[in-house]
């Protein structure tokens, strides 16, 4: 995993490790058309502070005014405006991509901005009503523009995009690059496939293919939890557009972008354990009874069991209740978990039933090695390592032969450990 697994605006990796050259952009006609319409569009008109340029129309003369921090040009015809735009193709294309191609100020737009490290654009999303606008008019105070100097961040970002900017999202590795016309291309592959030649990966175009990739793990077992760290590798979406990138990510990890965006804006609504279980009805209504005892140790066990990074890539943000945090770690995932999921609820129902049983004292005779072997078997199953234990590795307690030997020696014909019945009323079955 690379270091970019936090939503805190950390700089994404630059795939080239260098990338100082700002690429030349062949500005598409659609971008120039959009630019010519911009003076009449309050919502999408570029600003010096964020976009690095601004444009206005001089209605009397039927001409345009085009201004950057380097200077101001007036009396531009549609043709000379196009020339000015091409001279500043980087900033114009960046404005065009986010305002007209991405065209979203919600979670999707925030995610696509974050992917390429467009922090100045993310910042603007977070400011309601774009407060940069009132003092950013052409008839305002142009000298203010210098203090906000947006040009270099955009050019630096383009230089990085020319070679590829990479972020990780769960087990996904997403690399953004520039097309010749300044629009973005997104490559998505498994993080474990880093450095593998594309030709050696199965290539896909349709975001919906992600559904079948995510359905089973590498061993062919159904993955009921999309954010389990068991996504198989060996595939690539080599050339997605902005919409396709978002849809692919949403298919692999549904709703993660929406919740990440809420968290990023400080608006994540967390439903803690207690309220989530209190909401359950039907066969899940029983879980609420688990909370009637003293303390919340049982919830600590549930979180340790289900919500560790080894089991789920979401970062658990829910606690026992708003005033009672859990002591177990919530994990380091880039996207948050805002309430106990349906798998936790289903498992909790079963634990509620099992945990209602009173404890009993059983007496077993085991050798010290057998006791340790029982512990090793539990560890191996809990950590999902059973399949890794080699056929003939009888030094491992959870090895199949070792376990069969233990069963042959210690189980009676009814499967009772050391012949001790589970229900004491049944009496002992062996002498």
């Amino acid at each position: 995993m690379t270091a970019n697994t936090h939503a805190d605006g950390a700089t994404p990796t630059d795939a080239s490790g260098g990338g100082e050259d700002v690429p030349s952009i062949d500005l598409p006609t659609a971008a120039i058309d959009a630019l010519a319409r911009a003076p009449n569009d309050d919502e999408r008109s570029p600003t010096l502070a964020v976009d690095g340029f601004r444009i206005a129309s001089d209605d009397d003369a039927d001409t345009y005014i085009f201004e950057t921090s380097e200077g101001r040009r007036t009396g531009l015809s549609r043709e000379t405006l196009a020339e000015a735009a091409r001279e500043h193709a980087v900033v114009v294309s960046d404005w065009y991509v986010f305002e007209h191609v991405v065209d979203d100020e919600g979670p999707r737009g925030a995610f696509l901005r974050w992917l390429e490290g467009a922090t100045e654009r993310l910042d603007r999303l977070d400011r309601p009503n774009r407060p940069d606008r009132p003092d950013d008019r052409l008839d305002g105070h142009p000298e203010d523009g210098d203090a906000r100097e947006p040009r270099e961040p955009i050019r630096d970002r383009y230089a990085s995009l020319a070679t590829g900017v990479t972020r990780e999202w769960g087990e996904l590795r997403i690399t953004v690059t520039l097309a010749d016309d300044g629009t973005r291309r997104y490559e998505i592959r498994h993080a474990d496939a880093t450095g593998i030649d594309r030709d050696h990966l199965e290539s896909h175009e349709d975001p919906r293919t992600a559904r079948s990739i995510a359905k089973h793990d590498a061993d062919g077992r159904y993955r009921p939890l999309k954010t389990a760290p068991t996504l198989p590798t060996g595939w690539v979406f080599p050339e997605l557009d902005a919409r396709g990138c978002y849809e692919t990510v949403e298919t692999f990890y549904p709703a993660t972008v929406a919740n990440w965006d809420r968290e990023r804006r400080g608006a994540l609504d967390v439903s803690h354990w207690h309220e989530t279980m209190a909401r359950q009805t039907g066969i899940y209504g029983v879980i609420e009874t688990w909370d009637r005892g003293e303390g919340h140790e049982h919830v600590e066990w549930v979180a340790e069991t289900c919500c560790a990074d080894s089991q789920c890539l979401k970062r658990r943000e829910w606690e026992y209740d708003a005033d009672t945090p859990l002591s177990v770690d919530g994990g380091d995932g880039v996207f948050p978990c805002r309430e106990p999921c349906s798998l936790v609820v289903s498992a909790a129902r079963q634990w509620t039933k099992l945990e209602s049983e009173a404890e009993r004292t059983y007496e077993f005779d085991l050798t010290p090695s057998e006791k340790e072997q029982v512990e090793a078997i539990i560890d191996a199953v809990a950590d999902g390592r059973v399949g890794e234990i080699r056929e003939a590795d009888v030094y491992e307690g959870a090895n199949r032969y070792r376990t069969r030997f233990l069963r042959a020696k210690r189980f009676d014909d009814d499967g009772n450990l050391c012949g001790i019945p589970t229900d004491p009323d049944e009496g002992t079955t062996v002498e």
Partner: protein
Amino acid sequence: MQSLVIVAHGSHLNPDSSAPTYDHADTIREAGAFEAVHTGFWKEEPHLREVLRTVESDEVYVVPLFVSEGYFTEQVIPRELRLEGWDVDRWESDGLSADQATLTATDTGQTVHYCGPVGTHEAMTDVVVRRAETVTGDPDVGEGFGLAVVGHGTERNENSAKAIEYHADRIRETGRFDEVKALYMDEEPEVDDVTDHFTATDVVVVPLFIADGFHTQEDIPEDMGLTDDYRTGYDVPTTVDGHRIWYAGAVGTEPLLADVVLERAADAGADVDEAVETVRRETRVAAGRP
């Protein structure tokens, strides 16, 4: 800008449970009536609780891919979607007639047209018949055939049997099949005795279930005597007690079900006329395509 959200049960154990939901969503997406078509689940992701926040539109049609009105459509789905002011009386339903209620989702502020389940819509009758056409490969199947519509039974919910009887009655009234019966897994008349209920040699059996799973792939085939062990499979048709049983599997996997989803949205005010035509045209059964 209108979007569609198809909500379904999903499963932690059965990978095929979500397949019909995705298939019908894809069909409707390709028909192009909605800005976007989303799916949400009780047991899979995105969860019902979070699906609306993945939808960019302000106006959302929510269609439950469930066979009958009951616990899920009346309690679980509205609660998890956080539909403000929901009350089952909003549907004014007798158990079969839920159409739609327009509410606001408190989580997102979206306007939600919450529709009745697909299973009780009159267009579902056509899907049961289409399923019979599909499994026999005969677009004119009917004469000389019996048809059994199979439901789970009343275990917890009397509306479940109502939906089965509703479609069986409607098909019977058309006179297309020699005999039409409603049968159940858990109550009389039972699907186990399917051959006792028909004089026709050929009987098509269509379970009114959304997805193939434990009940439709294991219980019902074994109960009817199509096979001793579901893992070894069965032929279509299989001869049991002198009857040829054409077992169709879950009706919810039939492509025409996408039409019922659209009808539900249309009844709630969605503009989907062209999409309905497209879906009906593209899901037709060609002769000899079992």
